[in-house]
């Protein structure tokens, strides 16, 4: 749902001179299919073994009992992400300015809670207004 929601604001994001990128531990063969299926106009980047997510300090390890539960659902993270340790990033959305500084961070350890894309647009507008001053 996050990807579809981002797709809906992509043209507005571009109109503000900005770009969206999605970073996921998922392997390229899966991101390629997903990108096609959702007709995305921004890139999905594969962060193999969560190297970048680690630098943003977003990585956690699924506890054994949850790993077993997901396996019982047929979800095999080790296959999709080549991640035998079952590590994942918490969901997070960042706005980064052209100087490489984070200007907004929306994150939540509860993966059922996300900030609205309209909030991200508002953050970008604040940024471009400040740049115009």
């Amino acid at each position, binding site marked *: *749902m996050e990807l579809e929601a981002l797709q809906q604001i992509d043209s507005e994001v571009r109109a503000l001179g900005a770009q969206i990128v999605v970073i996921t531990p998922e392997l390229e063969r899966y*991101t390629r299919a997903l990108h096609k299926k959702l007709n995305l106009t921004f890139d999905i980047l594969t962060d193999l073994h969560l190297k970048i997510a680690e*630098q943003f300090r977003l990585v956690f390890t699924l506890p054994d009992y949850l790993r077993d539960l997901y396996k*019982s659902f047929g979800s095999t993270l080790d296959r999709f992400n080549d991640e035998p340790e079952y590590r994942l990033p918490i969901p997070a959305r960042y706005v980064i300015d052209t100087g490489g*500084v984070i200007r907004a961070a929306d994150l939540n350890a509860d993966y059922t809670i996300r900030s*609205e894309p309209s909030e991200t647009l508002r953050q970008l507008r604040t940024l471009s207004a400040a740049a115009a001053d």
Partner: protein
Amino acid sequence: MASLQERLDEFKKSFESGAPPYNAPHEAIETMHRATAELKSTGIERRALKAGDRAPSFNLFNQDHVQVDSGDLLRQGPLVVSFFRGHW
């Protein structure tokens, strides 16, 4: 169009009802709640990079196996970076 959070709430309600199409057992839902509460209690949200921090640079392959460099992107304008756990 419903907001993203409204759609997530709708999905959660449907999933946690235990009804089709997900047929999630009650114990499974309890387990997932427990895991989320434990994860929150680790303080990961406080430790994660936040506004004012310098964003780490990255150079990663996109879905078409083209290398994408964050420095190149930032020369064109600001970035929205979304970390996504995957569709599994």
